[in-house]
């Protein structure tokens, strides 16, 4: 029964989250904290922190975390499948339509007006990621993290000038930042 409940709770999380990322939070909270009481509000806060520390979509992170705690590994797998089932069916339908009609002039016209909007959205996400990195305690005049400025600048330089691999840049920033913040800062 619990497994079924997990499945349907995360089926709803998958189906009712449009726009990704933080749009998922209220839906997850509604199911996991308010409806089923699988997590307390404090544990839900921990879940958000963990999601920010680990890779992957927050919906999948939440499904795995809650599933593990309620019903072990089978729970994690069932909740994750529940979370992606509806999105995958919808996207596969759209993908089939795209494959069939994606080259039509009218469709291309509409899609080509989406491209600049998508770039604007990616730029907006980049801005909030950069602000989060540069002002870890919130944006303020005194809150600028100089070490982060150095890391971001050096990272951009390595990527653009020397074409260094992206994953290398992320790992190096983690290693250097980890050493610096642990030994020098505070």
């Amino acid at each position, binding site marked *: 029964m619990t497994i079924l409940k997990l499945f349907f709770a995360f089926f709803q999380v998958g189906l009712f989250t449009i726009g990704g990322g933080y749009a998922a939070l209220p839906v997850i909270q509604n199911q996991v904290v308010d409806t089923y009481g699988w997590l307390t509000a404090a544990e839900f806060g921990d879940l958000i922190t963990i999601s920010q520390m680990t890779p992957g979509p927050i919906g999948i992170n939440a499904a795995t975390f809650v599933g593990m705690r309620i019903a072990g590994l089978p729970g994690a797998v069932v909740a994750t499948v529940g*979370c992606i089932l509806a999105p995958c069916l919808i996207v596969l339908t759209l993908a089939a339509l795209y494959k069939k009609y994606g080259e039509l002039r009218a469709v291309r016209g509409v899609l080509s007006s989406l*491209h600049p909007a998508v770039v604007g959205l990616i730029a907006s996400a*980049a801005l909030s990621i950069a602000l989060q990195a540069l002002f870890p305690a919130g944006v303020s005049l005194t809150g600028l993290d100089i070490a982060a400025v150095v*890391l971001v600048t050096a990272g951009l330089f390595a990527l653009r000038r020397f074409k260094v691999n992206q994953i290398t840049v*992320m790992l190096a*920033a983690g290693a250097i930042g980890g050493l610096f*913040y642990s030994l020098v800062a505070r």
Partner: protein
Amino acid sequence: MKKDLKFYLKLFAGCLRISAFTFGGGYVIVPLIKKRFVDELGWVSEEKMLDYIAIGQSSPGPIAVNTAAMMGYGLAGLPGALVAVFATVLPPLVILSVVSVFYALVIENAVVRNVLRGMQAGVAAVVLDVVVDLVAAVTKSRRAVPVVLMAAAFVAAAVFKVNVAFIILASAAYGVLAVAKVRGKERGHDNP
């Protein structure tokens, strides 16, 4: 492109690697997809990639999973989509399964926090890098409409915090009107 075992392995490995390093939200997949599937392998054009992202983020569910499904399907139909989605889901499933057991240790560990703080700066650099390229591609056309659409979407998302689904729908509506207008003009030419 041959759809042999090697192809599926490459698709699986590419998606797995991207998913394992998507720290900080769905959009971080964009620079990673561009690098691996557009620039290195040449399997996907930049135009198609933006199509996949546009459709992926306007449908329900995680953007990373949706975009992987779109790309996998575009490359190799249903088997491609299944391989791409499986590879995308696997890293968070494995990592969270492990972390959920002793998460208090991870959350309270100062060294882990410091490494992640540094990594956040690296992620910012990677995302800013791809934004520079994508914005340059839009402004290069020297046409006003795309630049205005891009700026409007940016302001709506960054300043007014409008849900991305609405922004995508509004741009699609604009696209439909623009296409209809071109059609109308052409019909006018056909029957004067």
